[in-house]
């Protein structure tokens, strides 16, 4: 079948070109169905405890991860007539944004006043235009009311917060864009800061998309130049680029189609997926480079296009098939990952790799055959600079195989020791460089306002029982004494406030009343003035489940894990009989860390085992199977080891990018082994390694050099893109060196036994 397809493409190049183009177009039409989703809450599987609790909270109460918009001017009192009008207008406009469920601001909050037998529940800001006396009264009320002040104003009262509750399943990028359109006209005169997970999740994908496109374009230009310098043929470079683009479009289109047909969140496009084009690009480039460079070598020998391409495909069809199938299999193992988005990632990229293989075996020979080649040109008559370099390099390696192998083992061993120091960081905000506007804004909200990280404690008890309410109060007191906690809120705060107001504003009564009837009296009294859903975010309808919301600073994932454990210990010891569940962004990040580590280890081990099995089967030798995984295993060890030694954090993004190492690493070793086996019968055993080095060393090096353009990603302002660029460069260099040194020297040392 494979041979038939290759033969068909050589015999009927135009038909082949047409068929591949049509299929690619159909596949890529799925691009329109791609749905971006970067809500970290959706990155955890639904059966994770914190996710389950979170889903219950969203269902029982409302969506409780907020977007914050703070504004003001430093050292200028924010409570002015103009600013109150602005709060009023922004509240009204933001409330009309389709993705917004609720806006919490001074314009939507209520005040409770009680004195000398009088009690009043009223709007905190009764109308848009307040006079100075009303503003002074408002300012005094806020000073006396910690619930409002801690959530909506900073200590200096020069900045004010608007808290936005997104609708469940809201599209965060659209919501952020709509809100920014509203605030933009005011930004000339007043300083604005935005934050919260919905903001980051809504803003980051766009930023990553723009920077990835810019830097990837730069990388592609550099890649094209390097390819052009070495291949010395514009049409060859264009052929490789065509192969790359067609595979990328098909892969992304498939992701869209599957989402369109299944509607499954496994096929959302998250920011993790933005690495897909780059991963596929390296693999498709590798296929193209191998075919073209081998074609040039064969052309030099035979001076006949058809013969050269036929011989090229005869020699390369197996290794390219093997590299594609092993890499695809490695990516398919991602479906075992507990992180839902990894499934769509793995399946789509596996398909993209297979489609790149199909195109390499059909489109590429067809295009080569369609082109009129001039054999007198340097490209076809003389070896390139890299080919000369690899000859010198190969001789050096193969003359000292034991020394090379020994040095390799030492490097891998030293690196391995660093793995224990790898730090896992999954909080998106920590993936930005200092000085980045999103990071600075978040820090501002953390320092000055309520904070952007949340912790939710769901209390499944009778919320009219004073004993339960007092225990909740105790939990809040504990939380408020944690330095990074800015504020906590639960129904106990409202009850204490109402109690004091009913008792003629006597602060002694800022407590939970001592009997149940008093508590129910307070609720009923409030209902005579308030709306039925005023407490919707604090207690459920039956008053048998309540929520303690804690707002805090963003900290490193490491600190989150320590703090989460401390809080859990406190709850276990102090309130052992209370039926409580803990969730929120903080617990998500904690669960996500272990999931990322588990997912990475599982995926890497599975991939290596599958690659071993496939290589073993196709080479019909366990020894060759083992040899094929050596370079990539060494690279992975060195990669994680160096991350540990140099303090580079492992994120869900970098963990995923380990697949690049596996993807390119296995390709290089399979090409090397395949050529080694191919040469067994043809060449004298003493020269075999050198011949293999000449055959595959050059395309490997060309592949590596052409991908160096992606080092441009290192200059990104976004740490994930820097990591992507860094890892690309590292993966290419380490796996190629691993193949051309460690693997080559092992095979040279053991060539008699192989």
């Amino acid at each position, binding site marked *: 079948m494979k041979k038939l397809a290759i033969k068909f493409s050589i015999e009927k190049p135009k038909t082949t070109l047409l068929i591949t183009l049509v299929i690619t177009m159909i596949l890529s039409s799925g691009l329109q169905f791609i749905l971006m989703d970067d809500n970290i809450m959706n990155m955890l599987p639904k059966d994770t405890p914190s996710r389950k609790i979170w889903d219950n909270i969203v*269902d*029982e109460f409302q969506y409780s991860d907020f977007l914050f918009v703070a504004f003001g001017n430093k050292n200028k009192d924010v409570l002015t007539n103009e600013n109150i009008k602005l709060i009023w207008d922004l509240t009204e406009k933001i409330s*009309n944004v389709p993705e917004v469920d609720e806006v919490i601001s001074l314009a939507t909050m209520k005040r409770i006043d*009680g004195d000398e*037998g*009088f*009690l*009043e*529940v*009223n*709007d905190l800001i009764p109308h848009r235009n307040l006079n100075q006396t009303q503003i002074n009264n408002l300012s005094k009320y806020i000073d006396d009311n910690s619930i409002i002040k801690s959530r909506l104003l900073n200590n200096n009262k020069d900045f004010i917060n608007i808290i936005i509750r997104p609708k469940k399943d809201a599209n965060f990028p659209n919501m952020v864009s709509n809100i920014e359109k509203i605030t933009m006209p005011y930004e000339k005169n007043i300083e604005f800061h935005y934050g919260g997970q919905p903001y980051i999740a809504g803003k980051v994908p766009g930023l990553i998309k723009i920077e990835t496109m810019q830097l990837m374009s730069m990388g592609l230009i550099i890649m094209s130049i390097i390819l052009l310098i070495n291949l010395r043929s514009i049409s060859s470079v264009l052929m490789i680029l065509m192969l790359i683009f067609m595979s990328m479009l098909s892969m992304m289109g498939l992701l869209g189609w599957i989402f369109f047909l299944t509607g499954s969140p496994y096929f959302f496009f998250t920011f993790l997926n933005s690495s897909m084009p780059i991963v596929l690009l390296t693999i498709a480039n590798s296929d193209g480079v191998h075919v073209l460079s081998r074609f040039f070598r064969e052309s030099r020998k035979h001076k006949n296009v058809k013969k050269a391409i036929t011989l090229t495909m005869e020699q390369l069809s197996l290794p390219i098939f093997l590299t594609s199938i092993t890499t695809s299999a490695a990516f398919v193992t991602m479906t075992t990952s507990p992180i839902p988005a990894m499934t769509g990632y793995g399946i789509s990229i596996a398909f993209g790799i297979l489609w790149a293989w199909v195109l390499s075996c059909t489109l590429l020979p067809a295009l080569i055959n369609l082109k009129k080649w001039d054999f007198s040109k340097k490209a076809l008559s003389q070896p390139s600079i890299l080919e000369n370099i690899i000859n010198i390099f190969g001789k050096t390696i193969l003359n000292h195989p034991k020394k090379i192998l020994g040095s390799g083992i030492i490097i891998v061993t030293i690196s391995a020791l660093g793995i224990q120091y790898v730090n896992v960081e999954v909080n998106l905000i920590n993936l930005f460089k200092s000085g980045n506007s999103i990071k600075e804004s978040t820090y501002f909200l953390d320092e000055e306002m309520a904070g952007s990280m949340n912790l939710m404690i769901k209390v499944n008890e009778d919320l*009219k029982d004073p004993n339960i309410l007092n225990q909740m109060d105790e939990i809040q007191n504990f939380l408020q004494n944690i330095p990074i906690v800015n504020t906590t809120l639960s129904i106990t705060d409202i009850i204490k406030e109402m109690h004091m107001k*009913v*008792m003629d504003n006597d602060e002694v009564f800022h407590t939970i*009343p001592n*009997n*149940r*009837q*008093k508590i*129910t*009296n*307070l609720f*009923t*009294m409030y*209902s*005579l*003035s*308030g*709306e*039925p*859903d005023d407490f919707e975010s604090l207690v*459920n*309808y*039956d008053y048998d489940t309540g929520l303690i919301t804690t707002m805090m600073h963003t900290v490193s994932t490491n600190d989150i894990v320590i703090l989460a454990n401390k809080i859990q210990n406190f709850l276990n010891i102090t309130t052992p009989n209370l039926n409580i569940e803990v969730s929120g962004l903080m617990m998500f990040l904690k669960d996500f860390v272990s999931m990322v580590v588990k997912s990475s280890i599982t995926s890497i081990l599975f991939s290596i085992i599958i690659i071993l099995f496939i290589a073993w089967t196709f080479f019909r030798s366990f020894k060759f199977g083992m040899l094929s995984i050596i370079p990539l295993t060494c690279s992975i060890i060195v990669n994680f080891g160096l991350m540990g030694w140099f303090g580079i954090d492992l994120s869900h993004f970098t963990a995923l990018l380990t697949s690049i190492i596996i993807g390119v690493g296995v390709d290089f070793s399979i090409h090397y082994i395949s050529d080694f086996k191919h040469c067994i019968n043809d060449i004298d055993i003493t020269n075999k390694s050198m011949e293999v080095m000449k055959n595959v060393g050059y395309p490997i090096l060309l592949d590596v050099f052409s991908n160096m353009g992606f080092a441009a990603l290192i200059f990104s302002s976004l740490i994930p893109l820097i990591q992507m660029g860094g890892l690309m460069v590292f993966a290419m260099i380490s796996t190629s060196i691993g193949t051309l040194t460690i693997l080559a020297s092992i095979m040279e040392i053991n060539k008699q036994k192989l």
Partner: protein
Amino acid sequence: MKYIHKSIFILFFSGLFALTGNELVMQMELKPNPNNAKANMNMTLKNKKGKIRTSTIHSIIKNNGEKQIIWFLSPADDKGIAFLKIEHEEKNDEMQIWLPAFKKTKRISSKKRSDSFMGSDMSYEDMSTRKKEHYNFNIIKSEKYNDIKCHVLESIPKKHIRSEYSKHHTWIDASLLIPLKENSYDKNDIILKEKTFSYIEINSFQILKEIHVKNIQKNHSTKLIFEKIKLNTDIDDNIFHERHLKYLPKL
């Protein structure tokens, strides 16, 4: 006397010309009402998840709701809480609540018209009479509702009136002149509440038996059922006093 003349005039001309909104409202205003009423009211609130809260209230009203006193009978936790409201033309309304657990009577501020009535989906604005000087009335069509011939009356608040609504469409029984259904629209002209009314005839008065209000946007609803209705009994004005809040009346 003035009203009698007006009604004869309206009845005479309504046969010759199509009825206008103002004329319809005038006819409704002229309908006699009981002077006072006692009833038990079962209030059922239902939220978007289908969860229900119920309470029973004993209510006494006089002068078309100008004076009202209510006592909570159930749930058990609320029993004894009482509420008194006296409306005044010239000054703020008086509102007081008795909190038995605190043994305290608290004066409550005058309500905003858009505020919820006792945590229900009805606002104080929903419960107040729409006066001609505050609204523009138009009959937009006539159609059958539940097989009853109805005028559909559109009420648009005049500019100087603070209202949570942009308009109301009310289906009014063309012969009994009682509202059967009403859709109320928010300021963006999107339907906010849907209300239905059913009646019982007592002493030739059409008395509300059941009100169902659904807040379409919040998916929250309220059902009020009136029971043990007694009209025009001997109710002394003195009962509408703070001291009566503390004691549940004999039912």
